[in-house]
């Protein structure tokens, strides 16, 4: 377990002692990450926001139990678990479509890096992001959680295992299956993908 730096430690202690401002300060440092994770898990902005808000309330209630752990992975764990619970609940009672038919592309009002991309490039990037999200949405919840924590939050295997409550071996297995599934999913719609993503297929073809 990585120890929090001193300033975070002090803020964390204050939050644990009931200081709401300290709690909010810790939260503001990772709420974008929390929302990103929730969105990648659910594929739905409104639901993701609800999940984060509920996770924040859960975190505030349980902040006293947080000892010797960093706030961010702890909060993200709550977010992932909340999303998983909600998606499972909806799957059991499918009154609401689990994943939107059309990927929610509004997330990709992204600040495209580099200077002044062409509108066509922006559209292509959005299309790619929407395609990737649609492929993530098809994963099982277990695989999705591991993939999101590894490739979005960039946690190491042990941290993921701690977060989802399983063994490192299981994380490896789920992650490899998840990535292979996303790869196959993307390849099945490769014509829709920008050339930059299709490049590796040409490499593959050459190699094979």
């Amino acid at each position, binding site marked *: 377990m990585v120890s929090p730096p001193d300033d975070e430690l002090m803020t964390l202690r204050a939050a644990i002692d009931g200081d*709401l401002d300290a*709690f*909010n300060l810790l*939260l*503001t440092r990772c*709420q*974008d*990450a*929390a*929302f*990103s994770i929730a*969105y*990648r898990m659910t594929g739905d*902005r409104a639901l993701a*926001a609800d999940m*984060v*808000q509920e996770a*924040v*309330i859960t975190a*505030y*209630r349980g902040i006293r139990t947080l000892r010797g752990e960093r706030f961010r992975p702890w909060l993200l764990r709550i977010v992932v678990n909340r999303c998983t619970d909600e998606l499972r609940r909806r799957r059991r009672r499918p009154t609401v479509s689990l994943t939107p038919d059309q990927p929610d592309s509004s*997330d*990709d009002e*992204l*600040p495209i890096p580099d200077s002044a991309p062409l509108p066509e490039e922006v559209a292509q990037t959005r299309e*790619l*992001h929407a395609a*990737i*999200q649609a492929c*993530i949405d098809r994963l099982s919840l277990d695989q999705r959680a591991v*993939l999101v924590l*590894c*490739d*979005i939050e*960039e946690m*190491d*295997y042990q941290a993921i295992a701690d977060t989802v409550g399983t063994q490192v071996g299981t994380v*490896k*297995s789920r*992650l*490899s*299956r998840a*990535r*292979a599934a*996303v*790869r196959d999913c*993307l*390849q099945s719609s490769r014509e829709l993908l920008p050339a930059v*993503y299709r*490049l*590796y*297929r040409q*490499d*593959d073809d050459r*190699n*094979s």
Partner: protein
Amino acid sequence: MITQTDLELLNAYIDDQLDADQRAALDARLATDSELRAQLTSLRATVAAITALPMLTAPRPFTLTREQARRARALPFRQLAALASAAAAVLVVVGVLTARGGAPVSVNTNVFSGGTRAIAALPTGTVLLEVLEAVDTEVSADSAVAAAPVEAPTLAKSAAPPFTQLPAPTLAQDTASMFAAPSDDDANTEAMADSIMPAQNSAGLGEAQSESSAVMRQASPSVIMGTGLPSPSSLPSAPRVRRDAVDMLLLRIVTIVIGALIALLSLRAA
């Protein structure tokens, strides 16, 4: 041929999670295995595409206001209601399991165990009758007839009804088992089966009618039970006792099921 193990190795390779030896071994394979190399390339591109997904901006601040924080710390009404109903369910179950015992149970249990020991030591029905007379002068007419070792052919008929009508031993076993092990379902079920199926007992009694001493041993616990109770007037009639026992069993089963359901639902809601 790429196996699942290969896929896991490749992913760990991409994530830099292999130790030096594993990495060197995989590098050696990659140098000669084009299929493995192709897999690595495609997986790398996939990871690159996923990690390139943008970090989203929270659509609103998720920070808590003082009021939200106060409400968050207070137990929500739903949780309170759920906890209350769970507690109520537990109380109902505990109440039903224990409230039917009390004084009669202790009397029955003591008398039954004492009576059994007495019977075990008795070789003949004649001696048994003497003991019965000594133990209790208020023995009921039915019980006396049932216990009498005379007229063997009719004994089965006469013995069977009292035995079935007086499930006191089984009631005692039943209630005693409740006290001894309230959570022991097997014991309770066994006791329930005893009191629910007196017909089998009486059938067994009929088969044994030619052996009067055996009949006496079988019939005697119920007789002893009848004689050992405080007074006939305070004892409900035999069929009534049986119905009560069955009713109690049904009530317990229904209560346990309802209680468990309520508790389960409450805890899920909480």
